């Protein structure tokens, strides 16, 4: 009579693998993840699934040569603490990578990165 329990255990196994994404997960981004924009954006704006701790959340934008190109003025939106943004100077056409590391208010840290293209 273990068939149901075995199935439940298997499901839990899969659930365990996905739990890391249940904390502060990147929900929306502008420019979008893997997307392209015709002209240089003025900022990178990330919205997460949880509110962020400003002191322990960072965002960096690097060009294809690995140089940091953002203005290092990261901000958490005071009206929506799930949103973090950083300003950009006028960027030449190319591929850029956004690195983020955030600590949600429930003390879980997550990090990730994605690319976007300008002028393509």
């Amino acid at each position: 009579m273990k068939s149901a329990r075995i199935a439940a255990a298997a499901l839990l196994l899969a659930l365990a693998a996905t739990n890391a994404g249940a904390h502060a997960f990147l929900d929306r981004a502008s420019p979008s993840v893997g997307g392209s924009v015709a002209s240089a954006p003025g900022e990178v704006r990330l919205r997460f699934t949880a509110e962020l701790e400003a002191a322990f959340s960072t965002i960096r934008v690097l060009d294809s040569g690995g140089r940091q190109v953002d203005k290092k003025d990261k901000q958490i939106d005071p009206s929506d603490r799930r949103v973090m943004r950083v300003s950009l100077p006028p960027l030449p056409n190319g591929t850029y990578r956004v690195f983020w590391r955030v600590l949600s208010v429930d003390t879980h840290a997550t990090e990730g990165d994605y690319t976007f293209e300008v002028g393509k």
Partner: protein
Amino acid sequence: MADELALPTISQRRLGATDEGPGARETSAAMEYDKRLTPNLGVGLSADYLRQQQADGTVTDGFDNWAASVKYQFYKNDPGEAIASVGLDWDIGGTGAKAVGAESFSTFTPTLFVGKGFGELPEGAKFLRPLAVTGAFGLAIPSRSSSTTVDADGNAAVEPHPDVLRIGGSVQYSLPYLHSFVKDVGMPEPFRRMILLVEFDLQKPVDREAGGWTGTVNPGVLWAGRYVQLGLEAVIPVNSRTGGGNGVLVQLHFFLDDLFPQSLGKPVF
């Protein structure tokens, strides 16, 4: 490792016919609570209430044996998206109802758990990065090798209790991962929070009248929210030896470490 509560997990499936009669329709309502003692060591407790309806309409119900578990995560590689744990499950004999088949003896199952993501795949295969696989390899060892029963005529019958090799696993494709790390394809809610998966669960007695493989394959979908996760799976027998018919499994899962980060949801030590 995480602090989690699965309540309930409801499944229904027609079991295979046996020498004792036609297959019953079994409905299961289960719960499991997992608690971290340290960031890498956790314990769990699970219970399973069964209702079996025979072909003639007879219904039996009651708890299956309760089970306790301990699990230790000994390897984690964040950049490589790899994780491995060892665990021991104790199916506690005599804690359930004999009417639904709960054994009077215990079964111990040491298990190796592994999981691997594919975020390191090259740009040309970027749409495969949201794939992940998990596996569990265990040996269920009963505390009693056989049971002897004597019928009304005084005839004795011996039922062997073999060790059973158990292999479970899953292949899953995470749409949240796709949208957060690979490419936002503009999928609307609720689809952008879904994980498509196929799980399998196989078992094979390895001694004392060893038999062939039986098990199920379970295609389904999960929806991952901030605090809860919903799961829906079909339960399909892998072969005629498994017997029975197709079934369904539904689960509601709570992330206690997100719901109660400063109390129930953090390690004890």
